[in-house]
């Protein structure tokens, strides 16, 4: 009997194991990437929008894992190798995009890019080789593919899905790699990326027309020639009928799209990340063999670099809303949803504020607040109040001494949180080297659990898609 039970248990375990890693469960994958959206940003956004006991949509996903993000050469990664690790399963050096591990972004101390023009100076050979991405594998399998972002479409995260280059800043060349007929088109993309939405039109337009391209090419014209519908405003985007559109490029800003806070406040004619996600799903979803879609909340990272917590939280909520929209549109029986970040930042939640204290506010003294029955601010050693959200380091116009924040509205749009280590460069708050979270649900999500290195995520997605 005991033996029988053991056999049964083993059989159940075997079935469970094979189920967990069964290949090809997912016809579709949507890979959501919150750039720089570390655990503190997730928690702070939750409190900001839904309160301490509330929950973001991403937190409702079935499985959670913890991801180690270090790159091949750095304890703390930048967005290029971290996204490339998810997309290719290969650890590479900082600033390298979807290339083999032996690729260097620098020739000695000089980066392989002309910083003034955005032209790559990567050697044609002898400095690594391209490694295949999930988007390319999906395309080769006949699936539709897309990338949606709030940054320039040529920025590191979206570029890691479709381009291969030794230095991420060569954005003129990155743009050329995604445009059929440019002369530098990445042939592994087959008929091309089906949906591309974001910013960065300057890298698609020649300098003579106000862009950055030094080769004189108008890549937007080439895209139209290649059969793409091209739009550059939110209004035109809204008029795109996904039923009759199969290839769509939308570049809504010469540079990055506006922060969500400014997009809404100033009624900027740019689509929301949720709207872009929906349009992409509706277009890609027409492919009977399924699709691979990457969606990036890219400006979370930029606001954090600027130690502007409010804009970071607003962009995180917009990212979460895009996840919510996607969940309302897909069938989880055939679609895998993965939500993660490429790296952390140095923002932290500090002090012992009472529950309900605004996350963008000043720290309260929980003891005195409770005893006195009214909000009492906690003071630092200099007898001045301090905010709940602070950063380990940061640049910008730092004050010679701490301001008295008693009368300061720290929830104002442009308030910049205080930092520990002062760096000289504006926007230079660094990434954090800590682990990030991964949430998943839908077809083939069983393996996304435990503490994993970021390259493992590639294998899990690839297996889920049966590629």
């Amino acid at each position, binding site marked *: 009997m005991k033996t029988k039970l053991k056999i049964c248990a083993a059989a159940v375990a075997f079935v469970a194991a094979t189920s967990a890693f069964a290949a090809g469960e997912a016809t579709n994958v949507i890979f959501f990437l919150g750039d720089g959206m570390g655990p503190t940003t997730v928690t702070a956004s939750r409190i900001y929008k839904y309160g301490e006991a509330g929950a973001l949509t991403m937190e409702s996903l079935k499985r959670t894992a913890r991801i180690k993000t270090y790159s091949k050469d750095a304890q703390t990664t*930048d*967005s290029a190798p971290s996204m490339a690790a998810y997309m290719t399963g290969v650890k590479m050096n900082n600033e390298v995009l979807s290339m083999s591990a032996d690729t260097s972004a*620098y020739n000695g*101390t*000089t*980066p392989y*890019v002309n*910083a*003034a023009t955005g032209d790559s100076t990567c050697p044609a050979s002898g400095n690594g080789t391209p490694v295949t991405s999930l988007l390319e594998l999906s395309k080769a399998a006949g699936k539709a593919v897309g990338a949606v972002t709030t940054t*320039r479409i040529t920025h*590191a995260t979206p570029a890691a899905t479709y381009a291969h280059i030794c230095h991420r*800043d060569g954005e003129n060349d990155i743009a050329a790699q995604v445009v059929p007929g440019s002369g530098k088109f990445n042939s592994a993309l087959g008929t091309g990326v089906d949906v591309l939405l974001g910013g960065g039109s300057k890298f698609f337009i020649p300098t003579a027309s106000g862009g950055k391209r030094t080769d004189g090419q108008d890549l937007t014209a080439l895209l139209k020639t290649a059969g793409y519908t091209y739009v550059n405003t939110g209004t035109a985007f809204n008029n795109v009928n996904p039923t009759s559109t199969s290839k769509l490029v939308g570049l809504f800003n010469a*540079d*990055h799209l*506006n*922060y969500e*806070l*400014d997009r809404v406040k100033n009624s900027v004619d740019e689509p929301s990340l949720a709207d872009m996600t929906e349009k992409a799903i509706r277009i890609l979803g027409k492919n009977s063999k399924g699709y691979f879609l990457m969606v990036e909340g890219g400006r979370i*990272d*930029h606001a954090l*670099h*600027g*130690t*502007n917590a409010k*804009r970071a939280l607003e962009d995180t909520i917009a990212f979460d809303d895009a996840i919510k929209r996607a969940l309302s549109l897909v069938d989880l029986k055939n679609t895998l949803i993965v939500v993660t970040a490429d790296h952390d930042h140095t923002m932290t939640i500090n002090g012992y504020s009472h529950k309900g204290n605004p996350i963008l506010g000043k720290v309260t003294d929980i003891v005195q607040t409770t005893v006195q029955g009214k909000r009492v601010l906690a003071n630092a*050693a*200099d*007898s001045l109040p301090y905010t709940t959200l602070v950063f380990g380091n940061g*640049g*910008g*116009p730092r*004050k*010679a*001494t701490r*301001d*008295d924040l*008693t*009368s*300061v509205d720290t929830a104002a749009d*442009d*308030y*910049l949180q205080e930092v520990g280590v002062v760096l*000289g*460069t*504006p*926007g*230079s708050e660094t*990434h954090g080297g800590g682990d990030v979270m991964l949430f998943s649900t839908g077809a083939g999500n069983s393996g996304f659990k435990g503490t994993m290195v970021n390259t493992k995520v590639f294998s899990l997605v690839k297996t889920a898609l049966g590629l």
Partner: protein
Amino acid sequence: MSKKILLHSLGGLLATTLFSLAVAAPTGDANLLVDHEIKELTPDGVTRQLHFQERIYRRAGLVWVERVLPPGAHDAAEHEHGDHDHKHLDLAAAAKLITLDADKVARIKLVNTHDKVVISVPPAEYGNVGFDGSWENAVHLLDPKQLKTMQPVPGQAQSYQLKRADTTIRVVWDAKGEFPRQVESDNASGTRHKLMRVRETSAPATTPWTTLQGYAQKEYSDYLD
């Protein structure tokens, strides 16, 4: 403007390089040297004193603000270690060029003369470069309208004072030059004293904003990951 906001505004003025300016009529050229001094006694018995200077050149439709740097600072050798970092930009070494465009909107660019680069800054990032986006806050060193919310100091022409429970602020105003000669504040306990003194200085031999031909044009986002 409430007194609370004014006090914060004035307090911030003393500690930062933001300048409040209000222009009802065309304002004359000015060449100014500004001393910022801060003295603070902390609760652990440590006295900290800080001092830095800025030069401000004011012309029609233009304000140039630059930090006075020690000789040799930010020279080639000092920057060598940073050459590996393509996103290096030292804010202290970068001047601010604030202009009024045709739509009467103030714009700021950073000018790094060492790297010969001009950096455009979008409004959402103004806070990170020490600019509040207002032309009125960029020509005078203190919005003259704020003086109307203060009390004149008896017997002292062009001197104004604002007292609050936790802070006292005093301003000496130069009506002709339309800038404060001095802005001073003390907290109630006397542990924090801030002083901004403004002197007229000579015009530069070559106005720096006229020598930017050939400079690389970059954007703030070029310095972000």
